[in-house]
């Protein structure tokens, strides 16, 4: 299959992709793997697509698969409304629509020669997963690769297969914690941001990628800053209502920025203050 570099210019038109597998991650989260009917389009870690379900509508969804293989694209989707619920009940073989990729990716190159610290809360592991896969594929370019993962409970953990593989891999230092344990859970208990002070990495020479609920990202940034990380090496990815993905629908504004055009990945100094204004 041919892989092209740029998204098509007729940007509001969706392109058909066929669902190959639907993998249940948690009770309300699935990962849907899809293949393009025509050419595949290259993407960078952190970018998102607008995914269309026939007759139902579109939702902005981060790409959660390996950027080295854009011909098999995955999105990891929590059922919260019409479109995401429909996506949670797809059958293999079904056609869905895709437009994208859109948005500013994670600045992975900035982490080269440094420690890479990835912090994910809940489904927040999905948008950082392509960055982790890309980093592990060129492992020698980074010093430490550290992953902190938090979930509400063990049953809310996504990508458990990956977590098991990575836990056994000396190339990456994985720490998993849950807010509240259940019987049989032998791992850590507590919110993910509590791990930040003790995990080994060099705060003065590291880059952090953070994805999760906004409060979690605020605490994570505070924790990293408290350890001495320069604020502009902390990156977060934000979520707002999004209708077009190409900077014309006005829905994804956060003060001076448009998430689809200027984000969704931001350096902390660009959005930290904005995130603390209620109802902005």
């Amino acid at each position, binding site marked *: 299959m041919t892989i092209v570099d740029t998204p098509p210019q007729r940007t509001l*038109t969706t392109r058909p992709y066929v669902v190959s597998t639907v993998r249940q991650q948690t009770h309300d989260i699935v990962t849907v793997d899809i293949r393009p009917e025509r050419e595949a389009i290259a993407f960078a870690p952190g970018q998102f697509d607008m995914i269309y379900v*026939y*007759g*139902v509508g579109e939702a902005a969804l981060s790409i959660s698969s390996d950027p080295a293989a854009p011909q098999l694209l995955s999105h990891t989707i929590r059922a919260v409304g019409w479109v995401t619920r429909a996506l949670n009940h797809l059958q293999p073989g079904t056609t869905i629509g895709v437009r994208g990729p859109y948005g500013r990716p994670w600045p992975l190159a900035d982490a080269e020669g440094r420690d890479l610290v990835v912090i994910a809360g809940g489904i927040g592991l999905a948008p950082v997963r392509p960055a982790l896969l890309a980093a592990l594929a060129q492992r020698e370019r980074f010093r430490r690769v550290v992953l902190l993962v938090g979930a509400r409970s063990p049953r809310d953990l996504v990508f458990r297969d990956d977590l098991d593989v990575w836990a056994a891999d000396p190339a990456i230092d994985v720490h998993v914690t849950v807010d509240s344990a259940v019987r049989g859970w032998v791992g850590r208990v507590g919110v993910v941001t509590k791990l930040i002070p003790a995990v080994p990495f060099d705060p003065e020479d590291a880059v952090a990628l953070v994805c999760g609920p906004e409060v979690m990202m605020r605490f994570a940034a505070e924790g990293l800053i408290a350890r001495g990380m320069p604020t502009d090496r902390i990156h977060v990815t934000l979520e707002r*209502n999004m*209708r077009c993905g190409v900077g014309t629908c006005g*829905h994804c504004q956060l003060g*001076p920025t448009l998430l689809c055009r200027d984000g969704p990945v931001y350096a902390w100094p660009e959005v930290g203050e904005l995130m603390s204004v209620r*109802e902005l």
Partner: protein
Amino acid sequence: MELDAPVLLSVDDLDTLIATLRTDGYRVIGPTVRDGAIVHAELTGVGDLPRGWTDEQGPGSYRLHRRDDDALFGYAVGPSSPRRELLPPRHRLWTAVSDGDVGFRVREEEHVPAKLALLGVRGCELAAIAVQDRVFLHGLYEDQVYTANRQDLLLVAVECGTPSGSCFCASMGTGPGIDGGADLTLTELFDPHRFLTRAGSTRGQELLAQLDHTGAGAADQDERTHRMDAAAEQMGRHLDTTDLHDLLLGNLEHPRWDDVAERCLACTNCTLVCPTCFCTTMEDTTSLTGDEAYRDRRWDSCFALGFSHTGPGSVRSSTRARYRQWCTHKLATWIDQFGTSGCVGCGRCITWCPVGIDITEEVAAIRATDGRRAARTGASP
């Protein structure tokens, strides 16, 4: 851009201009009286223009009156704006056609370039088109629908001789006079009734060449200057734009937002009449049989509760947050996002607000009790 010396057109010449455009295949859209307001509609000739009418506007009020002359453009802007022609309130983007099973293919809507002429466009409206151009033409991608309507757009502008009680274009630097941006710019002059006309493009020059005009003299030019000076004096409202961006963004927690939220009905009127507002949403429907699924785009408003819906609920659930979003977007964050103010001072939002909320007054109130100054001096606002 002024290409040749100004000329004079008569009312009959203007009628010929409309006829010429229509013969050339243009749909000519301009002001006309309907249901007690001056709105945009297709024009067949000068007879469709609001001859001898004027408007009286203020916060929450709009009324038409008879003038004591035959002026064709003796009023300010009404509720319609060019925005409606360039990105219609609702339009189809594409249709998904089912293959009867679990597949579909996409049939794109054809966006044929429109032959559209807007007549009677004011300075504030030319500025508003330029603002929307930045969003739809000069952003990440060109918007296909907007481009189709915009690329061959012909603009016949009119300088404003009768600003309304809601107007503040002089504060925003968009009017009442016009310095280019249109193919033809007219200034209506009286005794005798005539139009001082300047071409702003080669298309404008070509149109003038087809008309039977006479040259304009120094006296005509002086009369224009005089009228524009008088119009600027007559501006119903004023907005102090000094440091406006930082003033508003430095006062995001100002108590005035609570105050205006008590009055605002979140009715969305202000956003629907504003010539620069560009927000849209998508709507998906299916045919009765389910064989086809349609994707339409329609205007949306930041005053609607659903506008900011995300998983955990609406980001801006209070009216305070929604008015603040609208006002700070227009006057401050628009500049960050698109390099220009999002307000051109047309006054529509003031006139068409059912409770008469006045953006110039809200800003003045914030300026009068600037929270930043209070923070610096330690006093409470």
